[in-house]
């Protein structure tokens, strides 16, 4: 194969290059440098101790003290106006629009020239010190829930509905770069969930139907990394073109045979992707359908992430949220996997002449540049816990808070489903026997 492979494009070099397995961003600044920097000569020490460059700083000075003031009257009683991206001051009724991060930080531009790993300030490695927003570990179920302490000192866990207070804080928090406010209102979400379940009632678990109360749906901001990338992919395999088709034998012994030419096939494609969403919560990123139904939440992607606004905790008033617990380096394998899938999709049209298909055997992805922005995305979640082995199964019905796309997992009543399947099978078998008998 090696003689037919074109030389790969020169790998990107320099700091932050994916080919050099870069250290986790901010490692030196965190004091993880192998030698104590203070023992080194001053010029080197100063370099090592200097702050790491933050490519895009989405931190907002005006929110640093944790108080979100109305720009007109200075009041802090601010909420999102339902169904819009507007914030409204409940004191003076002033309304204003959050700044869109797409323009503010130039996130939609420069994809063709993206080099190295660019990490927005809110997507940096998780550290202590979130001020206005605090994360709590629920004493009821252990889930991590983020609370805007400006508007509430108590909160209700959106998983187990346990109420807990500020004294149960866990010692870190991660404020994202941007937030995409809810557009779909609760009534709309309830209607969509009802509509979804109404199409799946016949074989649904009896207890699920009895306890079905879509009004209990919870608006949750889930953490995602929104990734832009520039990559090249090389894919190598074998393809076959049919040259002849013929039949041999006669009657019942008639068989069709094919002749084909086998080709060594290779393809190369350079591409950029814009706003690929990756779950930045370890639990949500686990899509093992035998143990959870997180794939449901994954299905309602994508969001119109270009309309995301600069982080302002006021958007979270009245909503629940989950905290990010994955850093950029931990998500990189997932990014590469998805970029490879995208590349395979892109090259499919170019192998159309291989009418007997192509078997790809080896593939390579070179990520020349990636840009990571941490974002809270709005999801309406209805959950039902089905008891069973290994803690049972938590079934979700999720509604995209922007597009209204709805997906869900409805638990089935196994005996009903089996009875229906066996009945239909028996009926079909009866027809088959009747046909055989009448011959």
């Amino acid at each position, binding site marked *: 194969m090696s003689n*037919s492979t074109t030389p*790969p494009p020169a790998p990107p070099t320099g700091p932050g290059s994916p*080919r050099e397995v870069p250290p986790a961003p901010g490692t030196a600044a965190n004091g993880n440098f192998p030698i104590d920097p203070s023992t080194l000569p001053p010029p080197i020490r100063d370099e090592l101790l200097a702050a790491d460059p933050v490519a895009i700083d989405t931190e907002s000075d005006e929110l640093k003290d944790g108080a979100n003031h109305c720009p007109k009257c200075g009041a802090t009683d601010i909420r999102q106006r339902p169904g819009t991206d507007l914030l409204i001051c409940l004191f003076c009724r002033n309304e204003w629009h959050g700044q869109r991060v797409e323009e503010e930080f130039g996130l939609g531009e420069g*994809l063709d020239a993206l080099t190295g790993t660019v990490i927005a300030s809110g997507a940096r490695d998780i550290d202590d010190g979130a001020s206005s927003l605090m994360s709590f570990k629920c004493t009821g179920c252990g889930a991590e829930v983020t609370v805007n302490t400006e508007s509430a000192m108590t909160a209700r866990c959106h998983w187990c509905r346990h109420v807990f207070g500020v004294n149960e804080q866990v010692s870190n928090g991660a404020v994202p770069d941007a937030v995409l406010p809810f557009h779909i209102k609760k009534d709309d979400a309830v209607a969509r969930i009802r509509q979804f379940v109404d199409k*799946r009632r016949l*074989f649904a678990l009896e207890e699920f139907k009895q306890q079905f109360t879509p009004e209990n749906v919870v608006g949750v901001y889930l953490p995602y990394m929104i990734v832009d990338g520039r990559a090249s992919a090389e894919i190598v*395999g*074998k*393809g076959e073109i049919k040259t002849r088709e013929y039949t041999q034998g006669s009657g019942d012994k008639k*068989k069709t*045979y*094919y*002749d*084909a*030419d*086998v*080709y*060594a096939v*290779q*393809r*190369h*494609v350079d591409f*950029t992707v*814009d*706003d690929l*969403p990756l779950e930045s919560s370890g639990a949500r990123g686990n899509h093992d*359908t035998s143990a959870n*139904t997180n794939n449901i939440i*994954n*299905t*309602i992607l*994508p969001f119109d992430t270009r309309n995301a606004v600069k982080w302002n905790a006021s958007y979270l008033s009245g909503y629940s949220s989950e905290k990010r617990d994955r850093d950029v380096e931990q998500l990189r394998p997932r990014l590469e996997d998805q970029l*490879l899938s*995208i590349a395979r999709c*892109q090259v*499919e049209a*170019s192998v159309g002449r*291989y009418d*007997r*298909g*192509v*078997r*790809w055997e*080896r*593939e*390579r992805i*070179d990520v020349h540049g990636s840009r990571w922005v941490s974002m809270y995305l709005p999801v309406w979640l209805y959950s039902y816990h089905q008891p069973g082995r290994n803690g049972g199964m938590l079934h979700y019905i999720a509604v995209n808070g922007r597009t209204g796309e709805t*997906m869900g*997992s*409805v*638990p*089935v009543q196994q005996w009903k*489903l089996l009875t229906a*399947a066996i009945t*239909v099978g*028996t009926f*079909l078998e*009866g027809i*088959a026997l009747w046909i*055989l008998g009448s011959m």
Partner: protein
Amino acid sequence: MSDDGGLALLLLGPAGGAGLYWMLYRYYRNTDKSHAFERETTVDAKPVTGAEHDRQVDEVKGTRETRIKGDNVGDYRDRVERMRNDST
């Protein structure tokens, strides 16, 4: 009718029952769903290259298979051997 045909007809019942079960189960539980990022992400790709290097290496005579063995051209998420940067 041939033996093959009769056997196929006898399998109609079990196959139909199992098929219905599987179809309904997936309709309720949606275990096969996920984000179709291959289609739903904005991808800006330069023209695909490499077709000029395709060359015939072998031929197959008299096979009964209608597709190449291990055909994965549409199975984008089926990961195959990764070529790393230090190998070609």
